[in-house]
C-alpha cells in the first residue's frame, strides 16, 4: 500500500494497517502529534487506505 506522509510518498511494509502502526514504524510518539488524514483530524487507531494523504502536526511546542 502506498500513502503520502507530509507530501512524500511511502510504501508501507506488510503488517502496517493503522495510523498507530505507521507512527511506531517511523519512530514518532503519538502523544506529540495530531494526525490529519485527507484533511480531517483522525484517531490513531483508524485504518490506513491506499492513497491516503497524511499530515503529522506537532502538538508540542518548546519555549
Amino acid at each position, binding site marked *: 500500500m502506498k500513502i503520502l506522509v507530509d507530501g512524500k510518498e511511502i510504501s508501507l511494509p506488510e503488517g502496517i494497517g493503522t495510523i498507530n502502526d505507521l507512527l511506531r514504524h517511523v519512530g514518532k510518539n503519538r502523544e506529540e502529534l495530531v494526525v490529519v488524514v485527507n484533511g480531517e483530524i483522525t484517531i490513531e*487507531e483508524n485504518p490506513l487506505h491506499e492513497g491516503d494523504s497524511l499530515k503529522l502536526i506537532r502538538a508540542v511546542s518548546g519555549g
Partner: protein
Amino acid sequence: VKNLFCGCGEKAIYRRRYSGQVFCRNCFNQYFERRVLETIRKYRMTERGERIGVGISGGKDSTTLLHVLNKLKNRLGVSLHPILIDEGIQGYRKSGIEAAEESCRSLGLELTTASFNQETSHTLDELQRTGDQKPCTYCGVLRRKLLNQTAIESGMDKLATGHNLDDEAQAIMMNYLSGDIERLHRLNGNTTNPNMLKRMKPLSLIPEKEVMIYALNNKLTISADECPYAKHNHRTKVREFLNALEADQPGVKFSIISGREKLINSTAPRGTNIQTCQVCMAPTARNICRACELTEEIKIKMSAANIGTAD
C-alpha cells in the same frame, strides 16, 4: 480494523486514551469548553465583574485560551484584555504577533503590547549574544515580570495564561529533579502582595495534544513556529521523557498533578521568608528579585560590551 465513531454516531476525531472516551468534532468542542469551565470553578479562579488580563503569544495554547474564555466570559461575568510580550526574537516572534492580532481582531478585543526592548533597552537576541545566562532564563524571568507589570498598569484583577497539563507536569517534574519542594508549594504563585497579580491557568487540566486539536478543529489562526532557543531548554528533555511515559502509561501526567496536590496538602512549606524586592516591590525569597537582578546584570554586561541602550 474499522473507523471509530463517537457516541452520537458521528465520525470520531479523538480518543482520550486515559479514559477511553471517543469524541467527534462537535462533542470534542463541548467537552473541551466544559473542562475549562470546570477547572475555573474548581479552583475558584474568577469572580464576577473582574477584569482578566490574558497573556497571548499567538501560539496554540494562549490563542485557544483566549477564544474559549471569550465564549465563557458572559457566563463568568468577566471582561478580557489580551496582553502580548514581544521578546525580540528575529524570525520567530513576528508570526506570533500577527496571529495574536488576528485573534484579537476577530473577537473584537483590544491588544496591549509590551516588549523586552522597552523594558531593558535590549531584545532577547541581544541579551543571549552578550549575557551569561541561557536565553530561556532571560525570557522566563523577564516575560513573567513584564506580563505582571503590564497587567497591573492596565488595571487588571487577574492574569490568565495558557499553561496546559503538560506544562504543569513538566514544571512539577523539574522541581522534583532539582529537589526543590519549596518551589512545588509556590508553583501556583498566588500571593496577597499587591505588586504580584493573582494568576490563573484555565487549561492546566487539559493535555497539550487536546489543546492543539481544539485549535485545529476550530481553525484558529495560530503561529506554529518553534522558538529557536527552545533546544537549549532543560524542559525539552523533561517533556520528551514524560511523553514517552504517557505513551506507555496513559494518565501519568494527571497522576503527577494529583500527586503534587496531595503532597502540598500534607506538607507545610518550610517557611521560606517571602520578602518584598527592594527595587520593584514584587514578592521574592531574597532581598532583590531575580528579574531585577537580571536587569542589573544586563546593564553591567551591555555597558562593558559597549552596546548602546535607547536611553
